[in-house]
């Protein structure tokens, strides 16, 4: 199986101590902020601040931040509803995300769309519709444009395990590989698709191995390990930039909350949650950096404190922001 072979051949990853501490710090800070903002939004959901339901990415932080960190700011990103971390890495403001879940005029869509639909093209991020994984064909199109223009930009698309069953996923990987597009496809395997467990979703050995059907490399990594995700993405990105075509990455984690906050998820075996609760990506990375001496307890304390305060301030602003003006709702159905 190419995927295991591939992993076997891969060089041992550089120890944290030998990596750029500024980068490690920024990855850590973004993961902490992601967690703080989502925890705050869960409270807001329970408190009735939000319009509809809330999708969170608990235990996806190492994937969304680790992968985004391996890209350049001008690379294209097509995240999903678990990837707040990738948005924050790119500079999305937490209050904008909250404003989106509240339908405020200040949300990136001005309240026309809402909830998880807040991607900002000015940050080279695609704002996806509900249909999954509609961001896949769009992502290969952004990669196509980069290649068309002779730029060395790369396009990275996330999706979930369940999304691999769909038309968009298959047709996108096939086209991208045939046209050798500079794309990276990341499957966030969090064990469930809404209530559907893996064995009702796919009969393949894993998701990485599906790369064989498209003649591209596929690799499976620990999605709770930010550096493992970073390294796998960096390798795939280098390949894409060099003009060698797309790669598939399966990052394995667990969906620790319901599909969305309205979902008690009692279909998830309790033992499974207990097992995975020991693998909190934020804590794991924090420990790694403490052990590597990149962080000390004081630094951890201040990062966590700042993140908490940032989330509180973001809520204040979002709450205070106005709702949109309905009189212009018919404007802008068509572009000039």
């Amino acid at each position: 199986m190419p995927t295991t072979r591939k992993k076997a051949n891969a060089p041992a990853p550089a120890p944290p101590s030998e990596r750029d501490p500024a980068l490690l710090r920024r990855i850590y800070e973004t993961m902490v902020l992601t967690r703080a903002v989502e925890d705050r939004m869960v409270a807001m959901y329970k408190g009735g601040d939000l319009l509809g339901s809330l999708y969170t990415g608990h235990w996806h932080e190492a994937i969304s931040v680790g992968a985004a960190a391996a890209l350049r700011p001008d690379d294209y990103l097509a995240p999903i509803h678990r990837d707040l971390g990738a948005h924050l890495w790119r500079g999305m403001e937490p209050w904008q995300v909250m404003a989106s879940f509240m339908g405020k005029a200040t949300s990136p869509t001005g309240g026309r769309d809402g909830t998880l639909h807040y991607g900002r093209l000015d940050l080279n991020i695609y704002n996806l519709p509900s249909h999954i994984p509609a961001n896949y064909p769009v992502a290969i199109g952004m990669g196509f444009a980069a290649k068309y223009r002779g730029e060395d930009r790369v396009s990275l698309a996330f999706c979930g395990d369940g999304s691999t069953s769909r038309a968009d996923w298959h047709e996108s990987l096939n086209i991208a590989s045939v046209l050798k597009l500079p794309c990276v496809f990341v499957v966030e395997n969090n064990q469930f698709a809404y209530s559907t467990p893996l064995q009702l979703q796919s009969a393949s050995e894993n998701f990485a191995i599906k790369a064989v059907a498209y003649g591209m490399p596929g690799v499976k990594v620990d999605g709770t390990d930010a550096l493992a995700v970073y390294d796998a993405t960096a390798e795939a990105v280098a390949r894409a930039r060099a003009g060698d075509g797309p790669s598939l990455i399966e990052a394995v984690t667990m969906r620790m909350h319901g599909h969305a906050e309205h979902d008690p998820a009692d279909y998830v075996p309790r033992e499974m949650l207990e097992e995975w609760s020991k693998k909190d990506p934020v804590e794991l990375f924090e420990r790694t950096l403490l052990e590597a001496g990149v962080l000390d307890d004081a630094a951890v304390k201040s990062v966590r404190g700042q993140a908490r305060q940032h989330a509180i301030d973001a809520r204040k602003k979002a709450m205070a922001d106005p709702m949109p003006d309905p009189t212009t709702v018919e404007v802008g159905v068509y572009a000039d």
Partner: protein
Amino acid sequence: MPTDNGNATYLDAVGLALEHEMDADPDVFIIGEDVGQFGGAFKVTKGFLEKFGARRVVDTPIAETGFTGLAAGAALVGLRPVVEFQFADFISCAFDPIVNVLARHHFRTGDPMPVTMRAPFGARLRAGPTHSQSVESYFAHVPGLKIVMPGTPEDAAGLLISSIRDNNPVLYLENKYLYRRLRASGPIPLEPIPLGQAKVVREGTDITLVTYSAGVSQGLEVAAELDKEGVSVEVVDLRTLVPLDVETIVASVKKTSRAVVLHEAALRMGYGAEITAVIQSECFWHLDQPVARIAAKNTPTPTSPPLEDAVVPQPAEIAQVLRKVATA
């Protein structure tokens, strides 16, 4: 399982009818995403897995094209699949098999194609542009499909029974805003209600309101208000869009000489266009005023409450249009 406590919701009614048909016919099965253990996104099939087992309550991968085509193949060889789309918005992913496989097959070959497609649709839940669509207009042009859109719990049950027993592909659209808001008065009769029969749900003399789905309860409330002003509104609930019960519409409009069509879908090429075209052709010499259409604005459905409310028809607008056309 849903139980009929005498005031079942619109949602309960759908579940009761589905259970009834699965009890009655071993060839009926339900297939879709998360319909098993989870009981469906809106819980229509809660308890079905326990009662009927995984053989007849089939959870699928996320593959609308695939499982809709699967239903077609199963129907061709004698089963009666009921397909659940988690949200009607996602039926777009099955547009191809619905239009080119299910709808055309009987005309092409003479083989029956008994597939019922259930989909929760509609706005007013702040769910935004890709979770709030009214999809009937995507399909109403397609020969070979039937389209059913109940507006009451009683009709939801009776029309689902008929849809499942029908030998054609039927698009059965459930207004998710009504799911827990509408309740039956009394036990739900689990009897088939024939497809293609509209119903005068309120008699009136001054003007005819032709509507369906959520427009029915909405229209009846407004009609009651207008009655106090001395405007007598007759409300026609189409119940089935295809085939369309032209007779009932025409009889009512010939009586009142004025007609308004109401739906939650966007105006342009909403089904109101077809109804209006039919009325003006069949009742031209009886009309005292042009037929008016009340519909959502020609925009996607926005998420934010003030925006969504500005796009989707509101009672005040409905009352105003009815008043204007009735008294002009």
